[in-house]
């Protein structure tokens, strides 16, 4: 399965450290399939 076959979610989360805090981007894969148009787009982009 290619990475583009599933939808992903990008979230910028706030992380609190002991002395400082920052915003961290995180990725999570979902169980939802990408539309065929997206799959075709990714394939053409990488070909």
């Amino acid at each position, binding site marked *: 399965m290619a*990475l*583009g076959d599933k*939808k*992903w*979610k*990008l*979230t*910028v*989360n*706030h992380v609190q450290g002991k002395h400082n805090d*920052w*915003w961290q*981007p*995180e*990725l*999570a*894969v*979902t169980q939802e399939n*990408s539309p065929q148009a*997206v799959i075709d*787009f*990714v394939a*053409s*982009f*990488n070909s």
Partner: protein
Amino acid sequence: MPKTKEKKEEIVEVNTGVTAPVASNLEFRIDPSDINIPYYAIKSALSQYDAGELGDLVVDKTHVVAKGGEPVEISIIKMIKGWEEDVKFGEPKERVYSKEARDDLAERTGVPVEKLKEFAEITFAIESLKMATMELTPFPSGINSTLSVSLPLRTTHS
């Protein structure tokens, strides 16, 4: 025998201004050079632009694509694994993208392989918002902008 008149039909070619499709343009193909790659950033206290609030994903320093803490749907286009030196923030560091180059970097710098930082260089596309698109982002609806970021190798599943 009576003479018959032969009716001739004249074929008139009308120029409609529309070009007939040919095999080469029936399918629109794009390649990476056709894609506008904008500048994305996460708004922080050190950011020197007005758009957005802390933690917002901002494109071209002018438009908020995603609010901090709120997920945005993306499509992964490609992902490359790499290794880099573990140095202080702001100091130059070398990045490599193969195990052979990783071992060479460790040997040249005297840093054990396990002390090098792993990362993933990810290129993905964000679907533009469908409502009030032109007010929110300078891009029309559709998958049309890509973003490359480097993330530590850690993902979660939802």
